[in-house]
């Protein structure tokens, strides 16, 4: 529970004594009036005695303030036995001289009234009990029992006034319990006027579900919460739940975490959600809300965070089995203790009890991530306004604790309120994702869109997604002539595209073949030409050779003739020319 500081003022504040009771110190802004009497009234079974005893016990344990319990109805042994279940060991405290229990037994049949008297004996007893252990806290339970014991009401009334005065003078912080009267806060209509603080406990049954409520009727000299606050009596004692935290002042994180679905992260400009934010996934039945939630939980566990998963529809075993079929294996993290699945039927408890269970488990496990699947089921145990106030408190609590929270909610598609949440929590959450059926001709497809995301831009597209063996996969956007195309139309579109592709490939290969043919024709032509050229070349070379030979012969003859003329030597047979 967060502590709310009092606003500093120039004037000194009324000193208060912290009760140590969950939530009560918040709505009283610091506890009960220190050294003054507080009246706790209510009808039978409200927990008046328990509130008082817890006040004493917490005082002893948490603040080291000894206490005196003066009981007019139950004996010390009975009281000790009654609160054992809450883990309060009154006997040990008595042995340690931290607590003194004085059982005042009044039996009218034993008492004869014979003249003037006062209740000095009570004052002396109480004074002795207080002084013997140095008590700072006192509880009187219940003072009205005096009225049944003593016939003289006038004396009693003046003595009770004197008692309140005396308690103030004694400087002990006191809780006095009283039964509620008809039309008045107490039967005698007296104590509420002489108390400095009056707390009213109320127990009412609406639609077979009991809700206990606490209200501070008066508190002299200080401001206080004036609403009715639900409270619970749990295994750990009294617990008051302020409807809303008084201020919006929680710290925020700039860190981004993944949703566990890569395609979904891409739809946000910062690729994920802010850590510590709250996310709402709404959708009609069968739109994979739980799968999205499980993906997120799994991703959180993979990051090394601890995740608390509240399942209001499925048992842990069923959830794990179902998620395994879509490739989300939660079991290892459950075994490690990173994932805690808390499954219960919403109707098991009243709303307040659920809230306390959530608080308790969060305190116990200290998770960084919480999933509640679904919140809409809680409507079955409370009215809409109650659910809204409960969720407000829950979301507040989670935000203050800086826990990332994911809620799923079932919305009805029929009443045309697709984009409204019945619980009206949509204004409380930071990110709101809507999943829905995109119903086309003869088929349903799942579509996902982001309705809001505080603090970052996001895609405006409705993205079709599939639940595959490997979790959720967002499909690429296919835009057809009529907008975004899904399902069978998407397939048709794809087939058309493929046919076009095949045709194009055919065309391409045909051209290739054509080219080849042309090349071959040209090559053949080139060969022909080369052959022709070769024969021409051959012929030319032949001619050339002959020409050359002739030229040679001619020149040789000329030489021979020239020689014979100049030297005049006898002619010898020339082998070269004789042939």
């Amino acid at each position, binding site marked *: 529970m967060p502590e709310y500081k009092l606003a500093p003022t120039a004037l000194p504040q009324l000193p208060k004594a912290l009760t140590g009771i969950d939530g009560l110190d918040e709505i009283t802004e610091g506890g009960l009036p220190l050294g003054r009497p507080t009246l706790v009234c209510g009808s039978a079974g409200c927990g008046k005695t328990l509130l008082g005893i817890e006040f004493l016990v917490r005082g002893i344990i948490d603040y080291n303030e000894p206490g005196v319990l003066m009981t007019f109805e139950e004996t010390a042994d009975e009281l000790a036995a009654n609160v054992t279940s809450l883990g309060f060991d009154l006997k040990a405290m008595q042995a340690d001289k931290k607590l003194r229990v004085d059982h005042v037994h009044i039996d009218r049949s*034993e008492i*004869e009234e014979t003249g003037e008297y*006062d*209740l000095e004996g*009570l004052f002396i007893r109480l004074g*002795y009990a207080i002084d*013997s252990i140095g008590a700072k806290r006192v509880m009187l339970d219940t003072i009205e029992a005096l009225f049944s014991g003593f016939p003289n009401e006038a004396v009693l009334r003046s003595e009770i006034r004197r008692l309140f005065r005396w308690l103030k003078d004694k400087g002990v912080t006191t809780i006095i319990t009283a039964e509620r009267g008809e039309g008045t806060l107490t039967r005698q209509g007296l104590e509420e006027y002489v108390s400095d603080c009056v707390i009213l406990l109320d127990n009412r049954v609406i639609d077979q579900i009991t809700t206990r409520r606490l209200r501070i009727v008066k508190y002299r000299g200080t401001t206080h919460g004036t609403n009715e606050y639900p409270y619970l009596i749990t295994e750990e004692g009294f617990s008051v739940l302020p409807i809303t935290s008084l201020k919006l002042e929680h710290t925020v994180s700039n860190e981004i975490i993944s949703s566990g679905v890569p395609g979904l992260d891409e739809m946000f400009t910062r690729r994920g959600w802010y850590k510590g934010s709250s996310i709402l996934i709404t959708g009609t039945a069968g739109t994979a809300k739980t799968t999205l939630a499980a993906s997120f939980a799994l991703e959180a566990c993979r990051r090394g965070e601890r995740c608390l998963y509240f399942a209001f529809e499925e048992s842990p075993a069923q959830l794990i089995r179902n998620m395994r079929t879509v490739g989300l294996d939660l079991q290892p993290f459950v075994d490690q203790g990173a994932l805690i699945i808390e499954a219960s039927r919403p109707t098991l408890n009243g709303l307040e009890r659920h809230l306390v269970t959530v608080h308790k488990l969060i305190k116990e496990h200290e998770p960084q991530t919480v999933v509640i699947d679904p919140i809409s089921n809680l409507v079955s145990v409370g009215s809409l306004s109650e659910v809204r106030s409960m969720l407000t408190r829950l979301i507040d609590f989670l935000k203050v604790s800086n826990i990332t929270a994911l809620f799923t909610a079932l919305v009805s598609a029929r009443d045309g309120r697709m984009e409204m949440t019945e619980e009206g929590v949509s204004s409380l959450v930071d990110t709101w994702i809507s999943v829905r059926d995109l119903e086309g001709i003869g088929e349903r497809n799942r579509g996902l869109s982001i309705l809001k995301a505080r603090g970052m831009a996001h895609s405006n597209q409705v993205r079709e997604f599939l639940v595959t063996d490997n979790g959720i996969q967002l499909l690429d956007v296919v835009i057809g002539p009529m907008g975004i195309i899904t399902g069978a139309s998407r397939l048709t579109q794809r087939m058309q595209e493929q046919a076009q592709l095949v045709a194009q490939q055919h065309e391409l290969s045909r051209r290739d073949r054509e080219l080849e043919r042309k090349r071959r024709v040209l090559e053949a032509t080139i060969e022909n030409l080369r052959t022709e050229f070769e024969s021409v070349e051959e012929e030319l070379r032949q001619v050339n050779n002959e020409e050359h030979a002739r030229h040679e012969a001619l020149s040789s003859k000329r030489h021979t003739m020239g020689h014979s003329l100049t030297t005049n030597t006898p002619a010898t047979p020339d082998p070269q020319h004789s042939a």
Partner: protein
Amino acid sequence: MMDMREAPTDAATPPDGDTWELRLYVAGHTTKSVTALANLKRYCEQYLAGRYTLDVIDLLQHPQLAEGDQILAIPTLVRKVPEPIRKIIGDLSNEEKVLVGLDIRTRGDH
């Protein structure tokens, strides 16, 4: 403790052998306490002479004794014996009621 124990002395022994064990709780010397003590002494001497013991306990001096006899009102006269225990509160000015409360009157002594 104003221990004003008065042993049975001069009076004759009671016819049935009963003795009255009485305890008067007061808180200081208030008017009511003084009146109560004076009244009680008078009744005892008158009706129970020699058949009673009386402890007067001042709770201002012995506050721890208040719890034992479940004392709330002051003054309170407790008849420990004969059984059952009876408590008579107030300054004992109503003689009739005191005598009935102490079971003196019903015995038909007077």
